């Protein structure tokens, strides 16, 4: 059967003038909805003197106040569990997910209704179809299926597409590799780090995935590495497959950008469902094509928690749609998400804020000094180790503290494994003024 190359041919090739008219119409309705239903947005709109009817052109978007992660966290802390962000009765929700927060143990919690959850899957359909997933494919999810949103949306998107879905779930890497071979899997969904880990483990098992598996597509998400040329090339050679980058965030529930099968060296923005601004990180003024800036996202999807001009702190560079030969009119982030404008670190797909880690460590009076050490194991896997010194006289607490701290940190970070290492007293640098307790020893990225 001959398929369309596009999931939604009408909008993926919509002339940009019409695309912007559609964005303006949706933006006005979303703002009206947010103002009418959501105390968080009512408060912010009123404080900024903004009214939805002021949106006459797309440039008027800049009248809308920014939304920040810090404000979101404050709202959650003042009014647990969801703050004053909800636009409708929580009883309309059918889905709950969370992501690690910026401070201490408070996560960002989100709810979705039936329609919202299906929209989340729909965005993945745009991306997966765009990279070539079809009903004939068998798609393997190397994913743990927890409260972390991860590949949940992609799983349901593949069901919607009509592909055979094979949920990897809680298995060992060896078992997953055997299943990929046994089931004749054609597509694997994984973080870049884990895709490399699977390849390495397969080699130890005497399996050459490029030759012995039927995998011809690897869908990457959760880390920027999917658009880093050297990592992509390594992965494509290892698996003997095309690797496509995607990026999403729990705050909007799904992906905003995806690499199409033409592999233009970046990711198309799903512009009929989002407005993606790129702003100078300090002046807040829009930057032009080819300039680095901060991603600011407005989502037309999840109405349960309206997201308007959300400052992501993601570092991106927008280039015109014509950079790609696929025919989409949607602009591209060259190199995908290139990094961060703040101190957030991405470890195996999980957001880690050093200040959140510190807040948990400071709950342990026996700990004196500490260092957050991020490093790469065997050039493949990112690791996070907390190096710490125990206060003199508290040495007896170490054994219990080691396990409890690792568990507390993991619980606050979507189950991410933290290594805990005790250092001799006085080995770590002790600070009097501005502390520098974060050491990111991973190699610098080359685009």
């Amino acid at each position: 059967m001959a398929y369309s190359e596009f999931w939604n041919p009408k909008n993926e090739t919509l002339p940009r003038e019409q695309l912007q008219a559609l964005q303006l119409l949706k933006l006005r309705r979303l703002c009206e909805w947010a103002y009418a239903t959501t105390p968080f947005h009512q408060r912010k709109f009123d404080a900024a003197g903004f009214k939805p009817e002021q949106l006459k052109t797309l440039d008027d978007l800049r009248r809308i106040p920014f939304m920040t992660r810090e404000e979101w966290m404050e709202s959650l802390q003042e009014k647990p569990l969801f703050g004053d962000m909800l636009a409708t009765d929580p009883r309309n929700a059918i889905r709950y997910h969370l992501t690690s927060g910026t401070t201490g143990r408070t996560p960002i919690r989100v709810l979705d209704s039936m329609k919202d959850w299906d929209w989340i899957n729909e965005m993945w359909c745009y991306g997966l179809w765009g990279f070539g997933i079809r009903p004939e494919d068998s798609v393997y999810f190397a994913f743990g299926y927890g409260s972390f949103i991860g590949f949940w949306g992609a799983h349901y998107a593949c069901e919607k597409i009509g592909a055979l879905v094979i949920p990897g779930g809680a298995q060992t890497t060896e078992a997953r590799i055997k299943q990929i071979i046994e089931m004749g899997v054609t597509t694997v969904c994984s973080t870049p780090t884990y895709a490399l880990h699977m390849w390495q483990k397969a080699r130890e098992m005497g399996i050459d995935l490029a030759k012995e598996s039927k995998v011809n597509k690897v869908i990457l998400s959760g880390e920027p590495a999917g658009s880093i040329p050297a990592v992509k090339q390594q992965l494509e050679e290892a698996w003997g497959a095309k690797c496509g980058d995607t990026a999403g965030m729990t705050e909007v529930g799904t992906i905003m950008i995806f690499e199409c099968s033409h592999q233009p060296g970046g990711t198309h923005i799903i512009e009929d469902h989002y407005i993606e601004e790129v702003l100078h990180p300090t002046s807040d003024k829009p930057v032009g094509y080819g300039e680095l800036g901060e991603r600011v996202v407005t989502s037309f999807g999840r109405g349960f928690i309206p997201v308007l001009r959300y400052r992501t702190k993601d570092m991106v560079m927008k280039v015109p749609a014509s950079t790609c030969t696929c025919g989409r009119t949607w602009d591209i982030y060259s190199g995908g998400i290139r990094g961060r404008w703040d101190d957030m670190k991405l470890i195996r797909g999980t957001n880690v804020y050093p200040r959140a880690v510190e807040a948990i460590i400071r709950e342990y009076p026996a700990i004196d000094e500490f260092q957050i050490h991020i490093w790469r194991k065997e050039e493949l896997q990112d690791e996070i180790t907390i190096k710490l010194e125990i206060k003199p006289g508290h040495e007896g607490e170490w054994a219990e503290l080691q396990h409890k701290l690792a568990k507390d940190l993991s619980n606050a970070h979507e189950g991410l494994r933290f290594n805990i290492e005790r250092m001799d007293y006085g080995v770590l640098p002790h600070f009097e003024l501005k502390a520098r307790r974060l050491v990111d020893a991973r190699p610098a990225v080359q685009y």
Partner: protein
Amino acid sequence: MPTTDTDLLGNTLTEQERALLNVYEALKKLAARDDLPPCADRNVRKALMSMWQATNDLDLQFEQLYDLGV
């Protein structure tokens, strides 16, 4: 059944768009009823959820459905 002859951008509906919008509007009416047995009530909502995606993707509507529990 659609109350409009155009999509959100003012383009005249195609025959297939009109058919899709008819199904969507019919499902909304069914979802608003309170006399359906659970097997119909919940599956109508699942169907409406899906048709919302198709009609929203094609710029035929942009609205919320929380008052229908969807």
